[in-house]
């Protein structure tokens, strides 16, 4: 990609942009798909709704994208939230049990009626999100007010969260047959409905962080929380806010994931997605040490992760073996972002200006 480089001002601004590396990675993967997987880019029109591998990347990536929005803000304050996967499971369990409480009676009867629900949909969604927000508040409290390292504080909920989720569902998989609920993850209005959810959350977050001072506060806390404290920013409240928001995002992601598989599976919903979300943010170029962040770059990072998954499935790599390939990609990204390689690229572009390199 460096070969066609012309020593121009515009090229420089492009490479310096935070979106450059994630977009480059995404386009490389899509190029790979274009060459090796026939029909990857075909988009069908079924009853006015668009279907196809490209759409699937967006649809299946929506949970990771939702998580990445919250995670970007948390990482920007210099923390990390490991519990998002467990919070997803908790939110899904609450939603499942409110719609189909049969599991609580230690008996499993299969509700097949698609109009049956124990509680109305708005109660289900609001209570699941409230529980998720509560989980986020708990993390934020531990990090901001108890001064526990973020990784450790959220590790606690990561360990016990799945236990709590199983406690809620009595250790059973709760079948969800209520049709309006399954619209969250499986509905289509020209594009998948979950994409609209992502777009709305992203738009609200973008507006809050870029059009108000909150975004600047978050970056300032991440860069140096002590000096931001002295300049009058209540860093504790900011931390509490971002962890709570991350819990909220995880709650939405849990609802989307459970409605996608029509089951509330406390054991498997959101398993290892916290890692996907963190990697999406890291690929997006937000430093794990905190500081400047870019929501859009994180979204592209999430799409990179999902595009890899999708294209590996299309080639026919088994689901479990996929992890090894993800690991290789992560290692490549790490090397790409390392000081040595950055210095190397910088060295090329400065010393060999004008020379075809």
């Amino acid at each position, binding site marked *: 990609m460096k070969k066609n480089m012309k020593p121009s001002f515009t090229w420089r601004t492009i490479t310096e942009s935070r979106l450059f590396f994630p977009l480059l990675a995404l386009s490389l993967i899509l190029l790979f798909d274009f060459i090796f997987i026939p029909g990857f880019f075909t988009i069908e029109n079924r009853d006015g709704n668009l279907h196809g591998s490209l759409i699937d990347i967006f649809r299946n990536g929506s949970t990771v994208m939702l998580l990445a929005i919250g995670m970007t803000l948390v990482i920007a304050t210099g923390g990390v939230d490991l519990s998002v996967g467990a919070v997803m499971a908790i939110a899904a369990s609450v939603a499942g049990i409110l719609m189909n409480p049969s599991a609580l009676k230690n008996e499993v009867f299969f509700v097949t009626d698609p109009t049956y629900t124990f509680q109305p949909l708005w109660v289900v969604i609001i209570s699941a999100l409230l529980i998720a927000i509560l989980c986020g508040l708990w993390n934020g409290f531990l990090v901001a007010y108890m001064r526990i390292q973020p990784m450790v504080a959220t590790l606690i909920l*990561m360990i016990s969260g799945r236990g709590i989720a199983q406690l809620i569902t009595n250790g059973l998989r709760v079948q969800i047959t209520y049709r309006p609920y399954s619209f969250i993850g499986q509905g289509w209005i020209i594009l998948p409905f979950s994409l609209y959810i992502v777009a709305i959350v992203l738009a609200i977050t973008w507006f809050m962080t870029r059009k108000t001072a909150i975004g600047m506060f978050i970056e300032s806390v991440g860069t140096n929380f002590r000096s931001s404290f002295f300049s009058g920013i209540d860093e504790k409240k900011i931390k509490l806010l971002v962890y709570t928001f991350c819990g909220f995002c995880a709650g939405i992601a849990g609802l989307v994931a459970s409605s996608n598989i029509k089951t509330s599976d406390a054991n498997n919903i959101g398993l290892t997605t916290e890692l996907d979300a963190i990697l999406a943010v890291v690929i997006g170029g937000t430093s794990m040490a905190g500081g400047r962040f870019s929501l859009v770059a994180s979204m592209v990072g999430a799409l990179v992760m999902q595009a890899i998954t999708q294209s590996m499935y299309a080639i026919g790599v088994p689901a479990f073996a996929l992890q090894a390939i993800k690991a290789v990609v992560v290692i490549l990204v790490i*090397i790409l972002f390392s000081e040595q390689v950055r210095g190397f690229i910088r060295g090329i572009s400065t010393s060999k200006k004008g020379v075809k390199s």
Partner: protein
Amino acid sequence: MKRVGEFFAKNRHFIPLMSTALLALTAYGIGAYLFVGMRNPQVFFNLFRNTSWLLISGIGMTLVILTGGIDLSVSGVVALTTVSSAVLLRDGMNPWLVIALMLLMGMSLGAIMGGFIIKLKVQPFIATLAGMWFARGMCFFISDDAVQIDNYIFHILGKTKILIPGLMELSLSQGKSAPYITIPVVVAFLLLLVMIYVTQYTSFGRTVYAIGGNEGRNEQSARLMGLPVDRTKFLVYTFNGFCSALAGLSFCLFVESGHGLYAPGFELDVIASVVMGGTMLTGGSGYVFGTFFGVLVLAVTQALIQFIGSLSSWWTKIVIGALTLIFIGVQTVLANRKSGRQNAEATVGAVAKRRTQLRLALGAGVLLVVVVAGVSISRSGSVASVDTSASAPCVVEFRKADADNLIQGGAVMAYQRVAGPQCVDELYAIYPDGRITGTDGVNTVEKQVSPDEIEEMLVAISVEHAWFTNEIYDTYLTPCRQCFAHYILISYNGQEKGATGTDGTTAMPPGYAFALAEIRPLLPEITSAP
């Protein structure tokens, strides 16, 4: 009173460690008081037998955490070790060579991750995460299914009983079988002793302590002091890779099979037990010996939950999470105190603030314990009122002799189903002429199906699901509350083979589950008379 205060002030470093040890012993004491079964010395030694891999891995993890890093790859390396050793043994490689290769593989994986962390300045969290995914993914490139280990030397290593000298006579005189431990336990303890020596009495150990702590600033000072920081970190990660592989081997000796899904979430257990052992997650403070007690707390918790019986297995996770929280709370308070002491101008306000923090930490801890205890009591109460028989753990006993008698009596298949929510114990016999009988000890039922159906089922099980091959083997774990344990004995075409299995686990071979699905529809239902 003053003396006690002085004692605590002098040994403040040991407080977390001592409280963990105290907790483990108290929990065991309460368990022994409540449950007669827990007084059996074998139950105590089983705590070590069931956690030897946790202890081995915890020792390596303690060193990594002392340097201020973390290693998430352990569970992946454990799974990879089980799978690759199982496959290599199946292909007939020398078992000693396999063990050496596995240890080498673990060390090289650790070394590569260490290299990434040191040379490329990657966060340990990310580098080892990639390591875990890589190892887990590789498992499924090697083998999709669980592979059974059927090797003489592995059998000797895993199943040799080492009797405890003093206790043997005692328990024999009480009419119990002599308590024993296994070779992996001995290996774990040897490793523990060696590492206690290395961390406390060698320059390598002192360097490990010097690197960790104070958010990376201590690493800077260690470097300025001329300590070999990079080399030590590299060695620590390599050693942890070695420990992971050793833990994997120990796990593999215990379950005698290998699969890529083994040990899910193992790294969390390891980290939790290191933290409960009093090691600071920021590094620089803690003891390898503490990890031993951390592991013990985890083992006792698991044993207690098993003995209580009415609590499901996920309570282990919640209790471990709560305990981790409490220990981290204590650590944070201690750390705040220490840094407060260094601040000469600690004002009254700061002291009051610290007090509030302390109270908050204690309050949160107490609240959590109360909530957990309250919920558990209310739950065990409600379970007891719904179904009294389930609150007592089922005794699973496979009646293999009875099954043999049935086969002698002309049956082609004997099938026993034990445990489950109602704690049943049913024995079915299937005869070639289509007659099926079943009994649960009290009631007897009989059912007639066509001989063709029986023949069809037998063919399906023995040919399609490969009953008479090595694919089907004995697995047994204590079943969960909803789960059944099964024993199937088949005599077909002059061959006879029986195998046990428990559902709800990944250890059961897939063919076994298919065979159960074939048998299930034919069986008559035993309805207990009111």
